[in-house]
C-alpha cells in the first residue's frame, strides 16, 4: 500500500481550492489539439459539400459567378503566411523554455498580421458581385469565408489573451499558453490556405 504524496493531495481543508488552477495548465495543449481536431471535422463537412457540388458540376465555378480578382485574397493570404512565420519564433522559444523580450514582440507582430488577414478577407467579402442564394457554390463561398473570419477573430482574441498573460508572468508559466494559442492559429492558417485554393484560386 502506497500513501499518496501529501504535496499533491489537497487536504480536506483546502478541498474547495481552485482545482483548475492546480492541474489544468499541463493538459491544456492536449485539449487544444483535440478541439482543433473537432474543428477540422466541422470544416470538412463544408468541404464535403464543396466536393460533391464540384463533382456534379459541368462548369466550375458555376458560369453565373463572376471570376474573382486575386489581388485582395492574395494579399490576405500573404498576411496569413507572414503571421505563421512570425508565430514560429515565440512557439519555438516556448518549446525550448527560453524567453526574451522578442517573445512578446513577435507575438504582437503575429496579431497584427492576423488582424490584417481578417480585415482583408472581410473587405473582399463585402463586394463579391454575387448573392448568397444563387447556388450552392455561392452559399459555400459566403458561409466558409464567414466561418474563416470568425475563427480568425477567435484566434486574435486568444493570442491577445496570451500576450496579456505573458506580461509579468513567471517564465515557467509562459510555456503552455503560447503553445496552445500556436496550435489554434496554425489551424486557422491551414484553413485560410485551403480556402484560398478552393474558393479563390480555383475561381480565377
Amino acid at each position, binding site marked *: 500500500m502506497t500513501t*499518496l504524496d501529501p504535496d499533491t*493531495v489537497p*487536504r*480536506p481543508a483546502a478541498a474547495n481550492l481552485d*482545482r483548475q488552477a492546480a492541474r*489544468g495548465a499541463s493538459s491544456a495543449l492536449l*485539449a487544444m489539439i*483535440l478541439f482543433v481536431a*473537432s474543428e477540422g471535422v466541422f470544416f470538412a463537412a463544408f468541404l464535403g459539400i464543396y466536393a*460533391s457540388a464540384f463533382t456534379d458540376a459541368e462548369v466550375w465555378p458555376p458560369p453565373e459567378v463572376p471570376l474573382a480578382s486575386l489581388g485582395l485574397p492574395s494579399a490576405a493570404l500573404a498576411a496569413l503566411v507572414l503571421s505563421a512565420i512570425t508565430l514560429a519564433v515565440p512557439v519555438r522559444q516556448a518549446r525550448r523554455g527560453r524567453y526574451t523580450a522578442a517573445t512578446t514582440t513577435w507575438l504582437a507582430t503575429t496579431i497584427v498580421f492576423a488582424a490584417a488577414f481578417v480585415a482583408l478577407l472581410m473587405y473582399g467579402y463585402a463586394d463579391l458581385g454575387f448573392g448568397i442564394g444563387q447556388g450552392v457554390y455561392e452559399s459555400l463561398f459566403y458561409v466558409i469565408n464567414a466561418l474563416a473570419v470568425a475563427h480568425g477573430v477567435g484566434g486574435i482574441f486568444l493570442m491577445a489573451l496570451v500576450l496579456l498573460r505573458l506580461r509579468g508572468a513567471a517564465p515557467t508559466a509562459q510555456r503552455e499558453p503560447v503553445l496552445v494559442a500556436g496550435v489554434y492559429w496554425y489551424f486557422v492558417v491551414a484553413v485560410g490556405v485551403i480556402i484560398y485554393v478552393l474558393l479563390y484560386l480555383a475561381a480565377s
Partner: protein
Amino acid sequence: MTTTEELAPRAPAPQPPDRPNAMARAVGWLTTTDHKKIGILYLVNSFTFFALGGALALLIRTQLAEPENDVLSPQVYNETFTMHGTIMIFLVILPLLSGFGNYIVPLQIGALDMAFPRVNALSFWLLPVGGLTIVSGYLTSGGAAAAGWTNYVPLALQEGTGEDLWVLGLIIVGVSSLLGAINFIVTVLRLRAPGMSMVRVPIFTWATLSTSVLVVLAIPALTATLLIVFADRHLGTVFLDPDHGGSVFNYLNTFWFFGHPEVYMLIMGSWGIVSEILPVFSGKPLFGYRGVIAALMLVLALSFTVWGHHLYTTGMVDDGLFSITTELISVPTGVLFFNWLFTLWRGKLRFEPAMLFALGMVALFLVGGIDGVWMASPAMDYAIHDTYFVVSHIHYVLFGGSLMGIMAAMYYWFPKMTGRFLGRRLGQVQFWLTFIGFNVTFFPMHNLGLDGMPRRVATYPADAGWTTLNQIATAGSYLIAIGMLVGFANLIISLRKPRTAPNDPWEGNTLEWATSSPPPPHNFDALPEIRSERPVRDQRLEAAAQPEGQPA
C-alpha cells in the same frame, strides 16, 4: 498510517435537524467543480428529462392503441415523437453515460478530479440550458419541432419557430458534449495514478474514452448540419434547395456521418458498464480484457465508415460498400458477446439487481444487434426501411442496450455515490417489469414492420390488421412505466435509509471501491498499489493471504 490519518476528512459538524444551512448547500451544488457532484447533477438532470421523454412515449403508445385514434392530432403526434427521440438521445442516454463517467472515471484511474473542473461544470450547465431551449418550442404558437430527431429536409425547412429552438438547443447540447469529451480524454490520458498504464485502465473508462473520441470527431458534423439547416432557413443559402443546385444529400451525408457514430456514443458506455459488472458478480476476471479494448477500438474506427447504410434506399450510395463495412462492425461486437459469455461461464453468479440489468442488457442488445445485421443487408433493408422493424431495432439497441446498462450502473454504483443501497427486492421487481414490458412493447414491432406498418404515422386504418399487435405494444409500454415508477420509489425509499454501504460492497475490482462510500472531496486518502487492471482485488487477496495483515 499517520499520513492517512492526517489526510482523513474531519467529521462534519453535527447539523441541527432543521438544516439552517440549506441555502449554503444549494449554492454549493450550483457552484461546484467537484466531478462527483457534477456527475450527480448530470444524473438528476437527465433522469428528469427521462421522465418527460417517457411520458411522451406513453402518449405515442396511447395514440396508437386504437386505429384511427384521435388522442393526438397529426401535428401534435409529430411533435411528440420528435421530442421523444430528441430528448431520449441527446438529453437522456448520452448525458446519463457522461454523468456516470464524470463520477466514476476519475475514481477508476485514481485521479483527484477531471482535468478541467471548471470546464466540466460548464459542460454540465450547458445541458439544462440546451435542453430547455429545445423543449421551449412547446411555448411557441407553431408548437415544438416536428421533423423527427433526424430532422429530415424539406420538413425541417417548413417548420415554425420550434424548429429554430430545436436547432439552437442542439448546438448548445453539442458544445456541452464536446467540452465534456475533451475533458474526459485529457483526464484519462494525463491524470492516471502511478502504475495505471493504459492496459490497466478499467473497461468503463476505456469505453468513456472511446465514446469521447467519437464525440470529438462526430459532433462537429452535427453542428455543421444544424448550421446548414439554420442558414437555409434564415440566411438565404441554398444548400438543401434542389431548385438552386442544392441537394438533400448535403443534409443526409453530413447528418449521418454524425448520426451513425452517434449510436456508438450511446452504446459504448453501456458496454463498459456491463464489462465491469459481469466479472464482479461472476467472481471471475473479465474474459479477454485486452480483446475487449481491441473490440472497442475497432468499433470506434469502423463506425465512421458505415453511415451510408441509412441511405440504401435513396439509390445514391454504393450499397455494396456500405453493406460490407456495416457487416464488418458486427465482428468486434460479436467478440464482445463472447467476452461477456465466457466471463459468465462457470462463474459464481450473484443475481443482484445490477447483475440482472447487466444480463438483461446482454440479452436485449443481442436481439438489437441481430436486427442490425439483417438491416445491413440492402436486400432486407429495401423491404423494411422506414417500417416499425426499424423502430423495434433502435429500441432494442438504445433501450435494451444503453438504458438497461444505465440501470445496471445505477444499482451498481449507487452505494458508492450515496453510501446507501438501492433496495434489492424492489430492484428485482423493477427489472422484471421492465424486461417483460420491454419485450411486450417492442418485440411485436418486428412483426408490425414486416407487415408493412410505416414508422412516424399518427394513426392507421382499422382494416390494416395492425390493431392487435399495437394494443399489445401499448400494454407493454404501460408495464415499462410501472417498472420505472417502482425504480423511482426504490430511489426515494433508499435515500431515506441510513448510510450502511461499506467501501467495497460488491467485492469490486477497480479503484472506485478503494475509497469510502461516498468518497471524500479529494477522492482517496491512500491508493492501493496498481499492478494489474484489478488493483482492489489484488489488495483484497493480499490482505486475505497474510493472517495478521493490517486492515486496508
